[in-house]
């Protein structure tokens, strides 16, 4: 696991069927993960997913399938805990596309990805921060 501190995560997910020829049906997949430094290698997230999904192929391009939005939210929370991030901003691809279409500058889009997603906070980390402040 990376030793560099992760403040926040951004996840972009899509509901689709990437393997129509295999007749699998649509599901949710995490397409991209970012942190405050940029695109995150998905290795840790893939390993985490595999812990509960032994059949998952680690060479797969995406993380999934997740059956429901609840499942992907739960995974996002676990990922936050595993990577010790304060929060994760989850955006669906339509939300991502909407932000892209209405934004003119790269810096604004960068900010919006974090602020305009569905924010899931790592409560444990938040509490620790509070206590750390209290006993400083």
């Amino acid at each position: 696991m990376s030793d560099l501190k992760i403040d926040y995560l951004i996840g972009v997910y899509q509901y689709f069927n990437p393997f129509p020829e295999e007749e699998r049906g649509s599901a949710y997949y995490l397409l991209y993960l970012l942190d405050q430094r940029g695109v995150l290698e998905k290795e840790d997230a893939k390993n985490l997913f595999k812990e509960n999904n032994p059949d998952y192929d680690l060479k797969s391009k995406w993380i999934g399938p997740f059956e429901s939005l609840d499942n992907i939210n739960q995974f996002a929370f676990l990922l936050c805990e595993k990577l010790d991030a304060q929060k994760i901003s989850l955006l669906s691809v339509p939300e991502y596309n909407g932000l892209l279409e209405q934004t003119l500058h790269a810096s604004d889009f960068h900010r919006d990805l974090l602020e305009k997603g569905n924010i899931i906070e790592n409560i444990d980390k938040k509490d620790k921060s509070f206590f750390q402040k209290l006993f400083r």
Partner: protein
Amino acid sequence: MLVVSLTTPVPRDIDSVFPGENWFFYWKTAASLWRIKLQEFPGMRIIVPLNWSFHSETGDSFDFDEHRPETNLLKLVEIATEVGKKVVFFLPVTPAPFLPNGGLPHFLARGLALNKEGMAYGLIDTDDNLIKIYSFFDPRVFEGFNRFVKSLGKYFLDNGINSDIWGLSCGFFENGSYKSFLEDSSNVYEQAFSRFLVTKKGKDQVLSPLEEKQYAFEFNKSMHELYATNARESIGPSFEGVLDVAFLGTSTEKFLKRLYGTLSTRDYSEEIYEALAKDIIPSSVMVPSRSKKGVLLRELNDLVANSYLPARLENTSYDQVGGASFAPLCFFKVYEKIDGLSSMFQNWDHIHLWDFLRFRFGWNYKIISSEKLKLQNDKISLNDNIHFFHGHDVDREMFSFIIRTFLNAGKIILNRSGLSEDLNKKLETFFLENNLTVEKVNFLTSIQNVILGDGRLIIFDGEELMSKEKASHDEFWNKIIETFALVHVPIENAEGIDYYWRTRGAQSNELNFEEIRRLSLYNPTSYRKKLKMNLMKNFVVYKVIDEMNVSVHTAPNEVEIELDPEGSVVLDFGVFS
């Protein structure tokens, strides 16, 4: 006398007006400054991409100097000629990532084009503005494009502008695969595709996912051809053809990296070599100037702007060895069928062919599509290349090319996995009819070796090899390629180094040599790198040029090169028998 001195620094417009590889964005500067800027420009050839949106007043009328002097392309050509430059126009026939809205006039930019994952294409120009790509599958876009190219063609004809015009097909690299910005999965696309399917399938016919995928490929290809054909017919004899261009750093992943400022030199440079291996022109016009320096800039100048791109625009066969200028040194040609389906079945990755070729030979191979093979069948130079074929890709046409190549002393490696039963039988019949001895050996997989004069045909079972570990694949390829005794000098300890071999015939004042091989080495890492080359007896260091942060030590049979971070050097080797 009043002397006025400027105190405000004049911003360098190297990014915005001259974004890379001799491109000139005429709309980004006042027409009154064209002469000065073109005069200062060091190159002889100016590439002018045409900005459809810039010339569009309404949907029906176009501005070619009726209202804005910056739309006066005739004046641009005249000024360029007066200052000794030659103009080549690029006309986008797909969405163009370097133009707002991908090149569409604002009134046509309606439906965002989406990639296969449903994500909108996002791009960042050199001023850090976001560029969005809109669907070219909207019939209104197609009609609008037709009107524009007709007006453009008439304007060129009426004004006697006979500069070359190339159609520009814009794409990007994603995980080693070249994708077009035309590719779309939006609702606009789906509606157009549905209309296409109605013409193709029976009324109640239900297509399997594979059939639909194949039709989707056919549909995309036909749309691409429609735009290109309309351009060609409207422009006339000045239309030279369509060029595939890969814009560095423009995939979705690279866009996200760029958003956070984490794109590295290696992210860009790898795409340069991927493009050269596939005969696609790499373009750095989307790369910000703060990244385009040092080793990356030298690679772009050496390998693209001053060599590959001019050769493509002159329509010279860049692969022809023996000319006065350097051509890529190509040991291997790997043939691929591109039909939207084959890549699902044939995959050299599974037996680590690409890893092996890149490790031992760098990027000195070519990937040739079945389309190109059909178009240039009689012109494909056999040289001493080793030709790779995958059984899944081999149809009758490719099969007859294989046999013809073998009979003409060519060297073939055929992975028989996926080869049809019919073609397998044809192969056996060919061996029998020509009394050819088929040597059979089992080394990690079953291998057949057939020799006819200087021709060699090696057939192996890829399926069986796939089940082995990567180390076995490396061993397999090492052994097979060793049997060809290629005249080549490997570079030791080259990990992390970018390098590219080129070749030309010896000139009359280089009588000792039969061939000159040029090795360009670049160190994009932040570490000093020490390389060593043990020279074969028929290799001699002939010249060392363009040394930058490097020291080169030559001895009779070896060369040691120490490249500092951002160091580079070019070595010419004389090769003789």
